[in-house]
């Protein structure tokens, strides 16, 4: 046998790689390049005129657009709060479930159900839960003496209410990652610590948490990248209201493109949000992979 690949082997290699390369180019790279180009154009399809190159005018307009700033702020708050809650709860659930008990598999399965529910269904379910006339949550709170709350109609509670729905949906994702991380920690290390007299808290703080750190950070960044793009749940539950208090960047992009028909301006927004997401991804690639 020769040391390197044969010409025939190399041809087969590229041939097998071709479908994936074609997919990436056609469905990822070309649309990205087109969006980038569109972000430098003025194009309102409602007026019928073709795109007109305007350089960085869209980006300059974004700099002075308070609606865009507000939407990015909503997305950032949503991302930070939802991710933090999901990580804490997910890890806590994983710790709770990571011990043998009767029905463990069934419990783990049930815990994963929200994650496999479509975001539109999640939004609808929680919209009903919060409903002032028929919502069980509202009824419960009223029975506890706090009166009928308009969760989605108040600027104080609308965003937290949507965050809660997201936490319900995506905590299982963090739980799954944390659980597999916990199950990867050698038992001998924990046992040795216990034999040496370490309390449960010290085992958690000095052994489990450091070994789980990589998984936690990875889960947090993955969730953060996803949470930054939140759209479906907000669209269903509040439509961005009250006022614009829950209008996320993705929802604003949607409205700019399909209500205002300003495709060029929407493309510029997409590029900015993409830059933020890329920054998060860059942090993700810096996370140590070992447990």
């Amino acid at each position: 046998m020769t040391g390197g690949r044969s010409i025939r082997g190399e041809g087969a290699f590229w041939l097998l790689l071709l479908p994936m390369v074609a997919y990436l180019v056609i469905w990822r790279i070309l649309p990205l390049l087109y969006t980038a180009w569109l972000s430098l154009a003025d194009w309102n399809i409602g007026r019928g005129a073709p795109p007109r190159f305007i350089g960085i005018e869209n980006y300059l307009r974004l700099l002075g657009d308070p609606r865009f700033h507000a939407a990015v702020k909503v997305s950032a708050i949503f991302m930070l709060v939802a991710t933090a809650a999901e990580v804490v709860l997910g890890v806590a659930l994983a710790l709770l479930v990571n011990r043998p008990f009767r029905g463990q598999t069934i419990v783990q399965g049930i815990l994963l159900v929200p994650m496999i529910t479509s975001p539109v269904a999640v939004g609808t379910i929680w919209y009903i839960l919060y409903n002032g006339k028929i919502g069980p949550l509202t009824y419960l709170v009223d029975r506890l003496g706090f009166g009928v709350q308009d969760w989605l109609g108040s600027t104080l509670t609308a965003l937290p209410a949507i965050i809660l729905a997201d936490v319900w949906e995506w905590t299982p994702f963090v739980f799954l990652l944390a659980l597999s991380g916990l199950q990867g920690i050698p038992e001998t290390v924990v046992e040795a610590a216990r034999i040496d007299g370490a309390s449960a808290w010290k085992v958690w703080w000095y052994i489990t948490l450091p070994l789980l750190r990589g998984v936690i950070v990875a889960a947090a960044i993955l969730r953060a990248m996803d949470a930054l793009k939140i759209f479906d749940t907000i669209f269903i539950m509040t439509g961005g209201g009250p006022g614009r208090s829950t209008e996320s960047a993705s929802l604003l992009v949607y409205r700019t493109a399909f209500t205002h028909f300003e495709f060029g301006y929407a493309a510029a927004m997409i590029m900015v949000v993409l830059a933020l997401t890329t920054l998060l991804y860059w942090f993700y690639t810096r996370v140590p992979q070992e447990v």
Partner: protein
Amino acid sequence: MTRKQFGTLIAVLLVMLALALAPGDASAGAAPDFRGVTLRVGLPSGYDEAVAFREAAIEAATRLGAKMEVLSFTVDQLHDKLLLDFQAKNPAWDIVFVTTTSAAEWMRLGLVTPISTFMKENSAIVDETVLAKDDLYRTEDFTFDGNWVGFPTYSTGVALFWRTDLFNDPTEKAAFQKKYGYALKPPETYAEFRDMAEFFTRKKGEPLMGKPLEADFYGTVHSNKPPSFLWYDFVNYLVAFGANDIYDPATKRPTMNSRAAIEAVKYYVELGKFQPPGQLNMSSGEAASLFAAGHVAMQVEYFQRMTAIVLNPTKSKVHDRTDFTVLPSQKGVAGRTHAAHAGGNAVALYSLSKNKTAAYKVLELSATRELQKKVLLEKFPNGGWVPPRMSLMRDPEMQSRYPWMKRALNDLLLRKDIYYFQLGQIPEYFASIDIVGAQIHKALAGQTSPEAAMAQAQTDLEALFKRAGYIK
């Protein structure tokens, strides 16, 4: 295969080919034959008039030998898809669904071929007696620059629905007279509407018609989910109060900071006190369902929607205790008596269609009285669609079958003192209601005052209109 067998096969194939290319049955006379033609139409889901058109179009196409392929989208998705397909020169459609806000825009863009243009260029295939255009509902609403764009899909606009049992109850009448100093009756002015909404808003346990309420009760309800649901409810108040619908048509300048517009917003915000929690996120179906469940005294809503829900005996607890009338008027505002959005959507010919003749004949046939009556009786036995044929509304059989029909015809359609209006016809209309709707929503949520809301809306609208080139 032998030579003889090969020859036989060729002969058979030639005979089959000859039969396929042979002209149709001569006895069919001049009847159009669209065998082999498949027509595509996109329709909005959740719209009863879309269901009615679908049924009529499928029947019409079948009679003409063609096939209908119907695809469903949400109304927003449908609008965007048609616009994008047209920009991409995609001839995928034959018939398109147009709303009152998109009709003029699409005609000017060239997305639709106006029916009047097609008829002029193809007069030989037009059957004027079948068409009976004068019998159709408000074709003028779909006529721009003299071009008739599409066939209306339903009739009637916005009306006021009210609970007859509450308004006729002696205890309630006496209490209202005592509190407000005038008789309780369907409101004729918006001041009266506000009083009555306030009067009927009560907490669980308080009496209504002499009995303690088992749940909170509300004077009125609106679907205030931004931007479209909110706008289609609010715009009736805006116009009634004397304001322009977003902009002055003469100067194309936004006017949402006018005194009349601000007064309308103030009034609308005040109505929030008499509505159920969650109204800020309600769709029109939800709002109507609350009325149908017996929790609301009055509702301003599209008449057709209410026939589907509130007047429908299979869906409403109060169908036999609900009546309707014209919208109130705002005192001191001339020329806007009982101002109401006329409603109406239409179906039109897609300009890039390769089957325009077949599409036109399907539209013509599906709009006939006979087919519309068939669809109404078979698909809407309990209401939900108000056909756009005036002669059907006058039909004694229909009036007896649908108790509300005669009154709707006389009190809503034929009444001359109603100021019916259509919505703005500029391409930026959706963007405009997105801008204004968000500000009104903020005011409804108590985030800002009506004045500040309209000031911001005006600023944002002026920026939009400047970018569009309407103003400098």
